[in-house]
């Protein structure tokens, strides 16, 4: 029983650590914390982005020890560490059935639980095809995305923004519904997400077939009461032949056993544990084919290439779009870290393939000139590491990192359309010399008097696309100066000016 408590302490500690790291991912507290750490040791993110991007980003090297530990000890991550798993565990407990035989039945293996392995195969094949879609279901990316875009903003906005100011995330409601659904599934079957869908669990399950240490029952003590199966989180059949790939080492079986008949030890009898997965070759191949077809279908059907959406303004340092989509797992850590709240999850701006990847929405928040937080926290290097000097283009870096270009809408601009003075876009422009500049023009106003106005222009050789002008423009709904993605440094094609000479 004491090991059960140890497990609960671990779960609580790691959940608290996760919440702490989420909590400090804001401009006031972030300094010095490796906030992306949970994603850093997520082996699925490491493997999928390495398959798609062909290298293992430094942050993801944390996953190597976890893989090795899993190879030796089994799938302990799911039962002891995973913050999403702990939430599932909790909600499974909330919905727990009263009668033991009912629970034994509910926590028995089902053929459907093989689905996660097929999903894993499909997602990894998609990764080989250059698309990091794994972030849709990876539990750490899932929970980060939910906390960034829904949970924290909802709590904070209710508390009048005491924590980091009110935040709004584009169609976060969709993410909220999926998150609530994933948790609510536990009220029906405990850990249903883990058992049925979780591709990280599937990966760790595959790795745990190598495990040298396993749970095993003692046949001498067992009186076939079946109690061990009552709360088995993985539906791993501890009373029969334990399915190692499904076992999350939660130790509920040990805790439940009235005769202390289950122990965790070195290579028990081959007849007491099994490595079998019950996958069929035909289904595995179908899953692989699904992954193979999904990528071209997502791309062809999105209309996002070769002409990007003008709204697809990527964070500074983001790799060129194909490389970006090979690494971005849509976790939303960058959006959480963004001090202005301008980084938002896409809905359609980057096509179906780019769903929930980050874009800057300058009306909601601009890109702070001397800030590189998003690149500092990106766990996969989809936003490549950036220094402030590199971003602003000081020597030895000659060109600043541009994320887009600003355009003036003369039909909405006060000095252009209303003969009214306004200098806000020029005032806030952070480049030096300023990208927004004036030409003095004397006009005859409606009442016949003449007036000299400062009419703004944009010098695209200076503009970095930060969007502070659009953010501050007094035309409150749709600004009179707006940024689009054209001119972004990362792309050789999405450009206007010949400056730089990359054709």
């Amino acid at each position, binding site marked *: 029983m004491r090991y059960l408590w140890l497990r609960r302490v671990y779960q609580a500690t790691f959940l608290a650590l996760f919440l702490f790291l989420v909590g400090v991912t804001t401009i006031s507290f972030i300094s010095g914390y490796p906030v992306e750490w949970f994603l850093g040791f997520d082996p699925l993110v490491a493997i999928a982005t390495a398959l798609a991007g062909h290298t293992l*980003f430094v942050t993801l090297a944390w996953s190597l020890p976890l893989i090795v530990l899993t190879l030796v000890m089994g799938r302990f991550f799911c039962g002891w560490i995973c913050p999403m798993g702990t939430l599932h565990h909790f909600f499974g407990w909330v919905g727990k059935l009263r009668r033991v035989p009912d629970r034994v039945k509910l926590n028995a293996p089902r053929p459907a639980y093989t689905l996660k392995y097929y999903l894993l195969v499909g997602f990894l094949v998609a990764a080989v095809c250059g698309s990091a879609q794994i972030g849709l279901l990876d539990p750490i990316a899932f929970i980060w995305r939910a906390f960034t875009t829904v949970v924290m903003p909802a709590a904070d906005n209710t508390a009048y923004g005491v924590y980091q100011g009110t935040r709004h995330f584009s169609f976060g409601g969709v993410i909220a519904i999926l998150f609530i659904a994933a948790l609510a599934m536990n009220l029906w079957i405990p850990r249903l997400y883990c058992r049925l869908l979780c591709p990280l669990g599937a990966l760790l399950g595959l790795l745990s077939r190598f495990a040298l240490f396993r749970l095993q029952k003692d046949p001498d003590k067992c009186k076939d009461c079946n109690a061990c199966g009552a709360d088995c989180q993985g539906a791993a059949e501890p009373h029969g032949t334990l399915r190692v790939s499904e076992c999350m080492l939660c130790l509920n079986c040990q805790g439940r056993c009235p005769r202390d008949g289950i122990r965790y030890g070195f290579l028990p009898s081959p*007849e007491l544990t099994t490595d079998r997965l019950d996958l069929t070759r035909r289904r595995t191949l179908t899953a692989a084919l699904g992954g193979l077809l999904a990528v071209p279908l997502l791309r062809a059907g999105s209309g996002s290439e070769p002409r990007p959406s003008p709204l697809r303004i990527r964070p500074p340092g983001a790799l060129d779009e194909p490389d970006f989509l090979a690494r971005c797992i849509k976790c939303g850590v960058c959006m959480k870290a963004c001090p202005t709240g301008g980084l938002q999850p896409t809905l359609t701006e980057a096509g179906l393939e780019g769903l929930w990847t980050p874009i800057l929405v300058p009306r909601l928040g601009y890109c702070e000139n001397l800030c590189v937080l998003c690149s500092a926290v990106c766990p996969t290097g989809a936003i*490549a590491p950036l220094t402030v000097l590199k971003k602003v283009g000081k020597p030895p870096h000659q060109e600043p990192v541009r994320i887009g270009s600003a355009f003036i809408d003369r039909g909405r601009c006060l000095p252009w359309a209303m003969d009214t003075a306004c200098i806000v876009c020029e005032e806030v422009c952070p480049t030096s010399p300023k990208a927004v500049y004036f030409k003095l023009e004397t006009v005859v106003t409606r009442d016949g008097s003449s007036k000299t106005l400062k009419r703004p222009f944009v010098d695209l050789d200076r503009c970095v696309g930060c969007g502070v002008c659009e953010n501050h423009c007094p035309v409150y709904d749709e600004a009179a100066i707006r940024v689009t993605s054209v001119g972004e440094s990362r792309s050789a*094609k999405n450009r206007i000016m010949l400056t730089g000479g990359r054709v």
Partner: protein
Amino acid sequence: MTRKNNPDLPLADALQRAADNAGKPRAYTRREITSKIAQTSVAALATLGLGTWLYDRETARAEPLIKMRDHRIARPAGAVDMAIARGPDAVENVRKALKAMGGLETFIKPGERVVVKPNVGWNRLPEQAANTNPELVAEVVRQCVTLGAKEVWVTDVSVNKVEQCFARSGIEAAAKAAGAKVVLPGSTGFRAVAVGGRVLQTAEVFWPFVDADKIINMPIVKHHGLTNATMSLKNWYGVIGGHRVRLHQEIDQSIADLAAMMKPTLTILDATRVLLANGPTGGSLDDVKRFDTVAVGVDEVALDAFGAGFLNRSPSELGFLARAVAAGIGTLDYKSLKRVEL
């Protein structure tokens, strides 16, 4: 029963063990345990090894750039630099001019891969003079094939839909009939090349121009709204893909930069029909005038200086020529070259 007086010791021992263990699950054998530990160790070491091999601190990396080759040939002292042939038969003109240059065989060797680059920019008929004369292209291809060229590629990165440009210009049919492979550029097959020019740093060059051993430039002389004239130098716009319309922001220097990157073996300038206005697309036959001239040479700048005359321009009026001279690509004073007029 004691072990001592039992002759069937091993068998009895095994039977005894089996009786003791009846109903109990069997344990792993030593061999199985060794194998299991070995498997786990190999998997762990493979993980760490792969992780170390793929370890990466910087995901952003510059695309590797290739450099274009120099396709010119060394010419003997006293060789003809430029040959101008006039006459009603275009094919006869190019034959005469090539012969005066020493014959195509001095430029193309057997087994070489040759790319012939006419101007096939537009979905226009030959009579509209927006594209190079297909008969000239066919004749050059035929000579290359006869000389034993391993491949003769005819290609251009057209402005209008490439399939329609090659069909309507007559160049696809003529070149194929003469034995060429017509290579139509699609969305792939472009290679990142270092240009290192004054305004162009990199460009996406269509693969035949990168792979070829020899390059024959086959422009047509015509009017151009921005540069006033398009001839040999401007024809290199058609080797690149990418977002190239931006070149018009710095068109003269862009042309010079591209021309400095491309060093063709030979240039054949088509002034059989010349589009005098509404270029580079044209359309009306009223804008087309026959000059029935073909000029062949190794100095593109000199050829363009000569060709400017058909458009009633002096070479000094063409900004790209001044930039090309500044870049050391050639000379405007074509009359100073060793020249043959036929």
